[in-house]
């Protein structure tokens, strides 16, 4: 979502049902949607857009596994190799005692790993300026946007027609 200078034609809908039917129409008309913006997650939209399932859970699993191995490994190394110390008659490798920390490390790594990955792949970070098309999108408007930087006027008109046919409340052109 790096904003380079481009021209975007977007339409605003008042309801998510209208949005969903519009997306269906656009997909069947093989229109190349740039992006869809909504004020809340709309169920059923993702398959319509043909979005692949997010693989964040795989990332989460990997990070969690790293966390578990790291935590357990460091504790094992410290207690058996680096500086073994007698604590209350326990054996050096006191596995039952390692479990709580191992679990916490799993969760910690999983959560942080996933979250940082999420923000990174979404291009979000503190202070990143949002390339918002319209301030009302986060309020109550649903938006379909097309990249018309390289489109001819005819194509633009076609898109405008699509918008009016699908029930868009507003259609605007914006340079970003």
């Amino acid at each position: 979502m790096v904003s380079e200078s481009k021209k975007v034609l977007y339409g605003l809908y008042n309801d998510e049902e209208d949005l969903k039917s519009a997306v269906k129409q656009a997909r069947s008309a093989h229109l190349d949607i740039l992006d869809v913006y909504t004020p809340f997650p709309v169920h059923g939209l993702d398959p319509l857009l043909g979005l692949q399932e997010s693989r964040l859970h795989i990332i989460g699993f990997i990070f969690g596994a790293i966390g578990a191995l790291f935590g357990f490994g460091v504790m094992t190394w410290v207690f058996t190799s680096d500086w073994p110390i007698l604590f209350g008659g326990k054996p050096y490798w006191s596995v039952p005692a390692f479990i709580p920390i191992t679990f916490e490390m799993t969760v910690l790594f999983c959560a942080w790993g996933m979250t940082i990955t999420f923000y990174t792949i979404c291009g979000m970070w503190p202070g990143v300026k949002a390339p918002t098309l319209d301030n009302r999108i986060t309020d109550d408007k649903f938006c379909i946007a097309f990249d018309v930087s390289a489109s001819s006027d005819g194509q633009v008109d076609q898109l405008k027609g699509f918008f009016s046919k699908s029930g868009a409340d507003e259609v605007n052109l914006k340079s970003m």
Partner: protein
Amino acid sequence: MSQAVAPVRHVLIEGDKSYHRITEDLVSPTEKAPTREWMIAFTIAAAFLGLYVFAIVWTVWKGIGEWGANRTINWAWDITNFVWWIGIGHAGTLISAILLLFRQRWRTGVNRAAEAMTIFAVMCAGQFPIFHMGRVWLAFFIAPFPNTRGPLWVNFNSPLLWDVFAISTYFSVSLLFWYTGLVPDLATVRDRATGFRRKMYETFSFGWTGSAKHWQRWESLSLILAGISTPLVLSVHTIVSFDFATSIIPGWHTTIFPPYFVAGAVFSGFAMVQTLMVITRKVLKLEEYITLNHIESMNKVIVLTGTIVGVAYLTELFIAWYSGYIYEQFAFYNRVFGIYWWAYFGMMFCNVVSPQLFWSRKIRRSIWWTFFLSIVVNIGMWFERFVIIATTLARDYLPSSWSYYRPTWVEISIFSGTIGLFFVLYLIFTRVAPVVAIAEIKSILKVAGSQYIGPNAKHQHGTESVKKQDESGH
């Protein structure tokens, strides 16, 4: 997408709201000037916070000897308060995470505030393990980092160290979960703001646009965070309970503590959420979002967990008798009949007896009863931790060491000061962020709004577009 709809469904958003109305109602408290009530509340809370800072500086300067703890009862108010605050914090995560996994839509009315409450409660809780240290300026010893002292590591066998990992994990994961959920709502606030406020919210909303792909990842992240937060909540309070369960003191050394503590944490957490929500909905005029149905649902959780806690108390007494082990038997006899018997009865009455009132639907749906009982529950839960810690230590194995504990003004100031800290943070929160999860409320409007379901339903749920509603003059 049509969803399976239960025949009996509560209205969760009253007042026939539109999406825009929702935005208006929930964002405007952050845009207006602080009300007089807020100023008064903030001043009082800040005064207590000042008292807290004074008492902490006094403690660190002079020593833990300024408290009432002694050679037998080495922990008393400090760790009681620690567990009390952590327990309170767990409700937020429970509401966000576990209720998400159980697809309970009513969580959306309260989850944002509850998660904020978690963060602030954990911050208050964290004060105690830090400042109860005799040499707090060496607190960094507790971090396992390579150093030039050997390297000298920490003791991974120690439940206190597990606490360090658990609490810090819990705090940071809760923060992540809360903040990630908050980002779209901050974007909503941003898009209505101008000038300096706009710059602030731009920074804090990380450039959120509302893109469908982002929403998809956001939901996936939320679901997984919920999925790991659930065992995290259970593990954190379990680990806190291990501070006692893994010791050998009779009355502490018992395997019932993990589930007992977790149930108790949920119990007290929900009670604190109720206290906060009852006030918040009234002051910020959010009764239509935090409805009586929300209040009632939370009261049901309270009566359930209160009963579990009651069962746990009775189990403890039974097992002590059944064990035939004199030290265990005496530990519980002493709790009921010994020097601190009044704390035990306070605990029993407040935790087991009083929440039973919530079996009555009328009381469940009464704001005044809810407010009153939620405070009673939290008092009872404080007594529970006090009974576990101070009563047990006062009468342990060797009678020659038996002692008595009385708090000093320093400890009382610290405790009441953390309440001040909590409310300062909460009050600031209500001014800078939406107290209710805007995007999530909008997402359940069509299945839980008053105009769609319930006795006054004007429209069918789920399928009609809002635009048409607006045309019908709403």
